[in-house]
């Protein structure tokens, strides 16, 4: 990069906070110069690994014959469970239920059993196919329908939230109903698949370049698997080609195996699974089956609710505990329940262990909330919008959640008011009614749905972050923090914060690869927390250095400290201004420490899981979407005609990046609820393991008219970084508007008298079958 001379006359720095700074890697993305792990130069003699996967859903391995694998061309070694030098476990929550390589028993179709190491990736892949493994097949559970939280196996202890006496409230309510809604899981489909490259070092150390959202956890898992202390393992990641939660824990396995092989063979080892293997052997969003019972009155006021949230967790706990907890935390979405009981049921199944995915159970939780709203609307013959409004949290009363946190920052009313206006909901509702009356085969539907999403890790200790800030003697800044870049623009936002603190142009700030060697004990870049946590930590680091600079300047120039002011690319000291770089040079000669480790922990939060009470969330993020669809009643095919979104990110650090997050999250949420379907055959084999069979949205699936607005009046009440709010996950759930618009369109075939009971993903097939059910029942 050519040296840039910062302007010392500028009234504003380039690229400070609240500006539309471009993604720091945008130029490299478009030229192909951005380096992902598979693009790095391989050390001489690098070997390649491929995982051998189980071919049954559940079974005892009675004979494992790998002779042909071992003698296949190019094969250097074949690892099995006995080659794991430390503990054969990568359970991220310490439940010891997830082996690196299966031993004795396989518990899902696609479970890794062995790992071939060969000269080339192709040789490793071909050799894998030569394994002969005999199984004694065992009964398996794939579907959670009919499982019982009291009797059936859970992968982790479940959670119950209660406020008031829900059973009594339902019993006493003028009207009651019961029902069930199912929603499917979701593959992350990060465009860059899982990958790790391990490079052995001296003293038995190993450095792993791993596409992960959670370098510290990879470090710990690899340490356990190798049986070495954490200091012997370094994890580095410059950027991921997408994460979405799929690289929070799912990289552990590949990193551990690459590290084991690299140490054993003394050579660099890279493992990059084929897309089919990646989709077969790594976890996904949890599918849920939600049972509900509601008590309400004729006006549509909800009086009491009981929920059971059953989840297909797969064969191990992974993150299913916190995911199913978060589902319960969002069983209210934006609605006040006078009395509520919600129970989670994290069921064991013989499927891949499900994991984090953008929203982390929150979306599934909200599916329950929005379903009961629709049910009440149909039961009372009112527009769902009216029922939504009626049951929203209040601002001064009716504002306590099922987990006893008071909602202090509720702005959903204003969001709804503005969106209803800008989207012309009433006018279009009338138009659609008229259209549907005159259209036999194509029916339109309209819906507006809210989002209120809790921000913070519910595991309180994760809400901490570190950063490392170096100012070099030329005034340029080297910045490192514990967050990871997966496309969301975290590095850009954190650099904006540091630029703003020092009042220097952003190109004076260089963000480098995340590595456990620079910032230790980091939390996953997850829970939408990246900028909130790491931005604050970096700010703290910058402020420490600034404080030293202020002390230094005040003493040297003999002025009061408040006479030292950081202006764009310069510092005013008393009556004179000197360039930032010059001050730094002087500070260096005066032996001022120009490096700092920043730290941040989120205040105010606490959570008592046993009691089901506390304040797990620092604040909430809000938004709403209005969607219009057209549906073909002959085939169930549909089109998203128009979507209007109003979403808030507080005082946005970067509106351009936030807009990208909102648009992208919405489409991903829409995909989850429409065309993205996971399908297992009768033998428990996942058959949708590639983009040819698993259909994420295309450009031609996006709404024909797509209006996305940031609520620029919003500001975080809490003291977050520059009063901004998190943006990663909340807009994902705006996709629910499409699902409810489909429900509305389907309902039109029975004059909106019957609830369509449309499950998700609402594929054309599910839509058509719902239409058929209504036609038969009307």
């Amino acid at each position, binding site marked *: 990069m050519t040296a840039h001379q910062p302007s010392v006359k500028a009234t504003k720095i380039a690229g400070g906070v609240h500006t539309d700074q471009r993604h720091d890697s945008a130029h490299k993305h478009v030229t192909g110069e951005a380096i992902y792990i*598979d693009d790095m130069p391989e050390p001489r003699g690098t070997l390649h690994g491929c995982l051998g996967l189980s071919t049954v859903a559940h079974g005892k391995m009675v004979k494992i014959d790998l002779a042909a694998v071992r003698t296949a061309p190019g094969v250097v070694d074949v690892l099995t469970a006995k080659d794991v030098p430390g503990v054969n476990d990568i359970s991220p929550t310490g439940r010891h239920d997830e082996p690196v390589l299966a031993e004795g028993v396989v518990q899902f179709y696609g479970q890794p059993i062995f790992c071939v190491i060969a000269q080339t990736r192709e040789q490793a892949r071909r050799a894998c196919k030569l394994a002969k493994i005999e199984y004694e097949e065992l009964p398996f559970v794939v579907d959670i329908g009919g499982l019982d939280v009291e009797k059936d196996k859970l992968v982790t202890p479940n959670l119950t939230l209660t406020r008031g006496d829900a059973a009594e409230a339902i019993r006493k309510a003028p009207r009651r109903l019961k029902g069930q809604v199912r929603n499917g899981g979701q593959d992350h489909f990060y*465009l860059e698949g899982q990958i790790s490259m391990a490079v052995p070092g001296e003293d038995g150390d190993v450095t792993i370049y791993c596409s992960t959202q959670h370098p510290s956890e990879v470090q710990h898992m690899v340490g356990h698997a190798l049986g070495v202390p954490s200091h012997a393992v370094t994890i580095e990641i410059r950027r991921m080609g997408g994460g979405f939660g799929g690289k929070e824990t799912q990289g552990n396995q590949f990193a551990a195996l690459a590290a084991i092989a690299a140490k054993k063979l003394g050579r660099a080892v890279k493992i990059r699974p084929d897309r089919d293997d990646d989709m077969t052997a790594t976890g996904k969003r949890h599918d849920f089956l939600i049972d509900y019972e509601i008590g309400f009155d004729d006006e549509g006021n909800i009086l009491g609710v009981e929920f059971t949230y059953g989840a297909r967790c797969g064969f191990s706990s992974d993150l299913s505990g916190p995911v199913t907890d978060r589902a319960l935390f969002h069983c209210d979405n934006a609605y006040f329940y006078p009395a509520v009981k919600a129970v989670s049921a994290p069921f064991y199944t013989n499927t891949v262990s499900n994991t984090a995915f953008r929203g982390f159970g929150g979306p599934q939780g909200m599916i329950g909330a929005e379903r009961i709203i629709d049910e009440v609307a149909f039961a009372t013959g009112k527009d769902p919008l009216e029922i939504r409004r009626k049951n929203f949290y209040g601002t001064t009363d009716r504002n306590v959640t099922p987990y006893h946190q008071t909602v202090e920052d509720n702005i959903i009313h204003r969001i709804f008011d503005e969106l209803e206006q800008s989207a012309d909901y009433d006018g279009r509702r009338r138009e659609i009614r008229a259209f549907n009356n005159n259209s036999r085969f194509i029916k339109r539907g309209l819906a507006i749905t809210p989002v209120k999403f809790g921000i913070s890790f519910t595991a309180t200790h994760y809400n901490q972050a570190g950063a490392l800030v170096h100012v070099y003697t030329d005034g340029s800044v080297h910045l490192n923090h514990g967050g990871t870049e997966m496309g969301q623009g975290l590095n850009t936002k954190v650099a904006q914060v540091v630029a703003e603190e020092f009042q220097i142009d952003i190109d004076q700030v260089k963000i480098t690869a995340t590595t456990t060697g620079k910032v230790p004990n980091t939390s996953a870049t997850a829970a939408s927390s990246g900028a909130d946590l790491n931005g604050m930590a970096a700010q703290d680091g910058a402020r420490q250095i600034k404080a030293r600079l202020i002390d230094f300047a005040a003493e040297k120039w003999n002025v009061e400290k408040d006479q030292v002011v950081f202006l764009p690319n310069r510092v005013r000291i008393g009556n004179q201004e000197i360039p930032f770089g010059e001050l730094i040079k002087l500070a260096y000669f005066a032996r001022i420490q120009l490096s700092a480790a920043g730290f941040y922990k989120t205040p105010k939060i606490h959570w008592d899981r046993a009691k089901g009470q506390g304040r797990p969330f620092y604040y909430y993020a809000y938004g709403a979407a209005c969607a219009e669809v057209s549906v073909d009643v002959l085939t169930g095919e549909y089109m998203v005609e128009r979507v209007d979104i109003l979403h808030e990110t507080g005082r946005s650090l970067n509106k351009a990046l936030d807009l990208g997050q909102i648009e992208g999250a919405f489409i991903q949420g829409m995909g989850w609820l429409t065309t993205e379907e996971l399908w297992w055959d009768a033998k428990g084999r996942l058959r949708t393991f590639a983009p040819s069979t698993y259909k994420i949205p295309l450009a031609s699936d996006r709404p024909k008219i797509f209006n996305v607005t940031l609520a620029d009046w919003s500001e975080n009440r809490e003291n977050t970084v520059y009063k901004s709010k998190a943006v990663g996950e909340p807009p994902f759930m705006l996709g629910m508007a499409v699902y409810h618009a489909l429900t509305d369109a389907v309902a039109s075939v029975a004059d909106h008298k019957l609830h369509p009971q449309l499950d998700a993903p609402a594929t054309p097939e599910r839509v058509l079958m719902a239409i058929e059910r209504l036609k038969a029942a009307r």
Partner: protein
Amino acid sequence: MAKAQPRSEIRFLLNGEEVALRDVAPDETLLDYLRLRQNLRGTKEGCAEGDCGACTVLVGRFLAGKLIYESVNACIRFVGSLDGTHVVTVEHLKSSDGRLHPVQRAMVDFHGSQCGFCTPGFVMSLYGLRMREPNPTDAAIEKALQGNLCRCTGYEAIVRAAHAISDYGRASKDPLLAERNAVVARLTAMRDGVRVEIGSGKDRLVVPASVDDFAKLLNDEPTATVVAGSTDVGLWVTKHMRDIAPVVFIAGLEELKSISEEKGVVTIGAGVTYTEAFETLAKRIPPLGTLINRIGGEQVRNMGTIGGNIANGSPIGDTPPPLIALGASLTLRRGKKRRTISLQDYFIAYGKQDRAPGEFVEAVHVPVPKKGTHFAIYKVSKRRDEDITSTLGAFLIEVKGGVVKEVRIAYGGMAATPKRASAVEAALLGKPWNEATVEAALGEFAKDFAPLTDMRATADYRALAARNLLVRFYAETTGTKAPIQVSRAA
């Protein structure tokens, strides 16, 4: 054909460099070649099956004497098929002084990348579009991007960028145009008109010099794998790791690329790609044009051939049902012998076609529907674009005096082969074309089809949707103004 010595190297132009390869494996993909051998790692592997577009590059080739550039999936394109072409990767776009190409600048300024992994592929697809349509419509952009998946942006920013590209420089000043004459000269110099033969046994690949050469070759080596577009065979290698040698690459045979019309019959050479066929078919048999736009993504349509779609005998190939409904026939050739059979008779059973060893599909003959007939194709899939069919119905009907005079209906996805709905047709033929007749015919579907349940759809859905397509077809023939399908049109 002069008996010239075969050449034992594949020659092509890679960005600015001439490449001559003697050590090409018959199953070596362009993507592996770029990434592993050339260390050009801007081109990414996302899926290795031609569905995500992260590996998109442009391939320039002569079509009817003109150099054209098309987006293709490097992951399923074999190096052996590149003889005489110009391969352009994302690394070629930046100018020598470091300035970004207009497509790249627009993508940067409009925040078209997030994680960036799919981005080089999008850049190349948009570049391909720009060379055809400098000021594209929304529909053209969506079509050009059907084969590119992005999981971050939701596409909106990319489409905004696509619209803005023309503001960053005139397409007529594009570097690939500026160097065009030089490229044409270099490619022309590579074309010596001889057969290319490399390796033997499991390493053998052949690029025949002509169709006659190909016919002879296949007759001599009937077990050879014939590769036209490689949109299917590519996956045999990348996904199933099958050994496919010896391989014969026929994509460059211009003689298989002719499209002609005589006496109301359009003849399409077996090597004609979907993209090449589009213009003629969209004009002469419009529903086929509409259908082609929903087959694969742009990259697949730029490689895949209608001949291949027929030859591989898939029960869910999209072109056979409409071609059967239209009464298409095939010319099959073995050595110098040719025979013509009806397409319908070509499909015998699952995985079994009426094609003898050493025989290949040379051309397909498609009668244009007569005036007064009504023809429609309806494809149903989970996702609208770039998805494999759940069920596809093709309907050809001639109604005279209110009575069904001729009817041909064929479906895909409903049986082990593309198949006529004979019982349904029988219930319609000679009857008044009205709702009651259609209603009666719906009851006959069960006699024609017992579809399967798989990951794309259940048997029940397939059966129901297939029946309903006849209802839709009836409505379409009544000329109703009310919409009968959801549409992408604004």
